[in-house]
């Protein structure tokens, strides 16, 4: 099976035939240079061109948050960003959270709090939460809810996700001195 098609919801990028644009950016700390179709979304670029399949497509229109990544420190829905708009950008995807094969505290807490079932929305939630905690290590419950409310989950009822983020805040303060 073509591992580009790991999910039935995924819409294939159709090459526009227009002249390619050279794109240079940093993804999870690695410099990446590629010639890209100007009409390719950043989501499709991450998945099709550099084979990072952690970022998911669901609605494809910025409503559900499944494709959330961190671009220059901000959580954005990569399905409605053009790849060419990311010229020079610093991108972090869910693959950038684990270090040296060890899950991050945030990921560990999603597991221990049962903050996922099917897991499809999880990368998006993780990236929204990461962007929040990077800019504010000690957010209020209201701030967490506001930031995560652009991510939809049909499995968990959200409470375990909220708990996972709150546990992460405690642990990061304790273990990382944030």
């Amino acid at each position, binding site marked *: 099976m073509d591992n580009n098609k790991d999910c039935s919801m995924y819409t294939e990028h159709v090459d*526009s035939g227009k002249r390619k644009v050279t794109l240079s950016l940093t993804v999870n700390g690695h410099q990446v240079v590629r010639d890209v179709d100007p009409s390719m979304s950043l989501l499709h670029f991450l998945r099709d061109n550099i084979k990072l399949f952690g970022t998911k497509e669901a609605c*494809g229109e910025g409503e559900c948050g499944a494709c959330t990544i961190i671009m220059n420190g901000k959580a954005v829905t990569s399905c409605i960003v053009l790849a060419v708009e990311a010229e020079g950008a610093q991108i972090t995807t869910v693959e950038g959270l684990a270090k040296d094969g060890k899950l991050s505290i945030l990921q560990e807490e999603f597991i221990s709090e049962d903050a996922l079932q099917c897991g499809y929305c999880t990368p998006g939630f993780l990236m929204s939460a990461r962007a929040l905690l990077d800019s504010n290590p000690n957010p209020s419950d209201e701030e967490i809810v506001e930031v995560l409310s652009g991510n939809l989950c049909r499995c968990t009822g959200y409470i375990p996700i909220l708990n996972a983020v709150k546990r992460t805040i405690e642990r990061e303060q304790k273990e990382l001195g944030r």
Partner: protein
Amino acid sequence: MLSRFQYFKPHNLNEAVQYLDKEANSFVLAGGTDLMILLRRNVINAEHIVDIKALPETGVFEYTEGTGLKIGAAVVVNRVVDSEVVNSRYRALHQAAASLASFQLRNRATVVGNICNASPGADLPPALLVYDAVVNIAGPQGTRQVPLHQFFTGVKRTVLQHGELVVSVELPESGEGDKSIYLRQARLRGHDLATVGVAARVKPDGKVAIGIAAVAPTPLRLFALEDQINARGLSQETIEWAAEEVKEHIHPITDVRSSAAYRLQMASVLLKRCLLALIAKED
């Protein structure tokens, strides 16, 4: 993506205007939160996308005493939400910005884009309207300024001509004793376009301004109603009267979000709540 287009990112305004003027099916890209959906669905015939985020003029976001607030076309909504100046001097704009779409979209969506998209139910126009916002437009014939209340010409339609783009929006100074509020009704607490959105402002001289969305083909500034309110003087009785009278000034339709009758009623309720909040004694 279904659409096929060339991507161009000019670094000065002349370059941008010339390109937009030269290429027939060219569209301006700022945040992309509306445009990308049209491109994805291939509902517009876009052959050229002009990304205006590198133009120096579009990055401006500044408040100047005596002049007011200038918001460039590349300034994203969350920057306005986080702005202390907006929060303290243009309260309704802060509230409207904070209620727009979701957090991630506010990291991309721009204030000017919310105007240019010209949705009848957009959140920011009511708040911008009560602050007498002026739209700065650049085009092949030079630059021009259009008051926001004259900018919208219909559903998703504006005064923008071929080759023109909006560079920024400006709000005159707002000082001490200037109060405003934005209230919206939506089907759910999350991210839905407003069923009705109302902004109201009371200036230091006691004069009222009212902006309203999702009750007509365009966002409206209710000048005639304001005059009547100002003639009566803002009081509890005037507010009760205005909450009924507002129904004569709007023309809501029935659509997927609401019936026309519900919109009329919510416009009445929200206007009353806005005005009561503005005359309430501060604690």
